[in-house]
């Protein structure tokens, strides 16, 4: 099912919203820089940077890829590892 709006319409409608969201992200990173202490080694910071990189890639599934950046990995052998017997 396609989006009835054209790309130009989407951009006109959402430009200010996208601009505002990018500004919020930039300001949040500035806030982290200004704060006392150092969180540069916190793994969450690396994930935030990786997510920003993924969001700027020219793909059609950026949202899904960003979600996966923030997700624990799935291990398909979990039932054996946890000794959970399937029905």
């Amino acid at each position: 099912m396609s989006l009835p709006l054209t790309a130009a319409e989407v951009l006109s409608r959402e430009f200010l919203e996208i601009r505002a969201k990018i500004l919020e992200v930039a300001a949040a990173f500035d806030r982290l820089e200004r704060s006392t202490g150092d969180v540069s080694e916190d793994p969450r910071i690396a994930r935030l940077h990786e997510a920003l990189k993924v969001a700027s890639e020219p793909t059609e599934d950026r949202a899904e890829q960003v979600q996966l950046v923030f997700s624990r990995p799935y291990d398909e052998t979990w039932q054996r590892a946890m000794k959970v017997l399937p029905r």
Partner: protein
Amino acid sequence: MDYFDPHIHMVSRITDDYETLAKMGCVGLSEPAFWAGFDRGTVDGFRDYFRQLTEVEPKRAAQYGIQHYCWLCINAKEAENVNLSREVIAMIPEFLDKPNVLGIGEIGLNKNTRNESIIFLEHLDLAAKYDQQILIHTPHLEDKYQGTRMILDMLTGDSRLDRSRVLVDHVEEHTVRHVLEEGFWAGMTLYPVTKCTPQRACDIIEMYGPERLMVNSAGDWGPSKPTAVPDFILEMRRRRHSEATIRRIVYENPLTFFSQSQSFRFRSRETEEVASKLG
């Protein structure tokens, strides 16, 4: 537009919310059993909660013309107490014949632990034994992807289940495809910060189509918006999607799914009007 909220926790909301929902077009809702914000200590605590879901809430809803349905279980957050979970599961059949009970839910995982998985499977046994529909909660944030895949492993490994009678809720961009491809219904929860926004729910509809997809507010005692489904309707209209498509997602799909439950006796406004004219 008339709509049905397939997942909302009205025990946590004030009566004014029922009035607001009715004004926004809500004609029916389903309320899964969930975590109260604290771990309950006894099976009698759950018995009282199930009485609230099956006796009190339908009356509160009916004052505003809203038809109230519910689902019963012990939720994943309390499943670490395996003994209590088993007592609750053994008690649930006392309520399965109540006229507004649709099935077992919202069962699922929270932190993706062994105990949660065991209790999830025992809920599946209960649903299979009593031929009940199932509504499933998937975990939050970083646990969602792993937990959803684990839940799908358990569901697809169970040959007793009819996949068209199972709704997997709280899907997002990274889990929706897995759920739909396995033949289950999927619900998107419109929930500030931690789940899906109305805009992203519209995106997902545009990518996957309206087949077997629903949207809900999951309004509860935390930061949440019980009128989130009308927000979704507005966003779909702003994108010029047809009224027929919107109605399918917020009204027809829930009715199609819930109609598979023996207890579902939904009466549309049109049916009510004809019935009142006939006296």
